[in-house]
């Protein structure tokens, strides 16, 4: 059996990649993917610990996280489509009418 700490390290790496992706990448779709990576890193931790502790709680949360991630991406795509229809771009840097 692979020790739990390996999973944690892998998920920490995934989470870091996700955070960097959100901060660095400019394309809104890639940003969504990075957020997804962060959430899935959390899912990996939850499943790994749920297995180690033989507790079902962690796995239950995974289901909800998957659902929430889907809803978030759906709304994100909707906003993207709306912005695209008015501005014809998917680049978050060009989305800058507001200061700050």
């Amino acid at each position, binding site marked *: 059996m692979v020790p739990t700490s390996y999973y*944690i390290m892998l998920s920490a790496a995934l*989470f870091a990649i*996700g*955070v960097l992706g*959100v901060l660095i990448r400019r394309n*809104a779709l890639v*940003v*969504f993917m990075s*957020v997804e990576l*962060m*959430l899935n*890193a*959390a*899912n990996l*931790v*939850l499943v*790994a*610990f*749920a297995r180690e*502790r033989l*507790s079902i*709680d*962690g796995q*239950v*949360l995974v289901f*909800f*996280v998957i659902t*929430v991630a889907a*809803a*978030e991406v759906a*709304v*994100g795509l*909707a*906003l*993207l489509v*709306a*912005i695209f*229809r*008015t*501005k014809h771009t998917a680049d*978050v840097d060009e*989305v*800058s*009418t*507001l*200061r*700050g």
Partner: protein
Amino acid sequence: MESLQIPPVDLRLLTPLLIVVGWAGALLLIDVFFVPDGRKKITGYLAIAGLAVAGLAGIPLWNLSGSTFSGMLVLDRYSLALTWIFLIAGALSIAVALDYLPRHAIEQGEYYPLIMFAVGGMILMAQSADLITLFLGIELLSITLYILTGFAYPRVASEEAGMKYLVLGAFAAGFFVYGIALIFGATGATSLAGIAAYLGRQPFAPQEETLFLAGASLVLIGFSFKIALVPFHMWTPDVYEGSPTPVAAFMSVGTKGAALAALLRVTLALEEAQTFWLPILAVLAAATMILGNLGALGQSNLKRMLAYSSIGHAGYILLGIMVAAERGAEAFLFYILAYTLTNLGAFGVLIALEQRGEAAWSIDDFAGLYQRRPLLAVAMALFMFSLAGVPPTAGFMGKFFIFTAAYAGGLGWLVLIGVLTSAIAAYYYLRVVVKMFMQEPVREVRPELTRGLNTEILIAGVATLILGLLPTPIVLLVERSLVALGG
């Protein structure tokens, strides 16, 4: 095959929540099937009725308390009091939108069910005693707010604000979930009671302690994003400015109130973690009070100013949370109620001045308002006084309770910062009042007052005054509401 038992569920404890969410779902269909375009106000009235019914259904629950869904959701007077505050905030936000939406040609019936769903999320947050349900509540609230922020399609600013809010909100959700995952790894539980039980079994293994601390920090970052605490506040002014004004009003009281309420419950439940938790909260509170108010100082756009001021107010409320065990919780509830009513009122005046196609948010547009609309100017002055904490208004009593509780709890230096920043805040709030009463109008702004808006401003104004002049009954009510919480 052995049979699995679904644990018994007591739906009575969730009556207001179920009514709000169920009504919202039904309203979505009613709106799309029966309500013709151009008469979407009907949907709005139905939504207000739903919120009222949910509020009434909560009254018999006052003497009830308990938990259901295996302890994931609790009902106590604290959650019930918050439920009522949230219902009021939702109803007032719908009332101001009734005429705002058609005036700006963005009327869609979905606005009203969406607000109801958001209120449902807030109630869920107030009732949750488990990180899973807390996360669900936060996301139900946030996802609906992303949609509402971008509601003014095809106004680009609104879409952009929605996008910005979504990216940062999802980012924060990532931190929050990862934090929950690490806490679960360290303690083997997601329920607040389970985590508290684990913390009581000191000392823990060093590895688990590291995991727990990392997880708790990540959860705190997630909270800070939602509440907009400095340094996680940068999105707030942009999002408020871009979103439709009724939505900004709802957001400024809703998200903050619900997230702070949840933070209070977490802080109280995890008493053992306070040695680690409180110093961080203290730094966050100090930074939030200082930078929030300093940020508001430089704004000439009133909508952005209110955004920064809402950041500052979150800092004051945080003081109440830190001393929640010693009377802070009562001060917290009173402050949330006072702030909700006052802020909704101020945004109501903003909405009255907002014309179609152009935004009358510049502070110059308020110049000479007293000569044109005396009553409106007086109402706005009242809200500004209340936000600044000038007696005899609700805001003053709220600040008074918070600062006394914090001082008694040994947070003297934070109270000092609080009082000093309140003085700064008084400058930029009173600047608006001076403009309204003492200066000549700069340009023609024709305020539009409609029935819904009038009612909202009236309710908010009267409540602000009553809370300031006769706080005793409310304070008694609030005190009683905290019996079950051990406050």
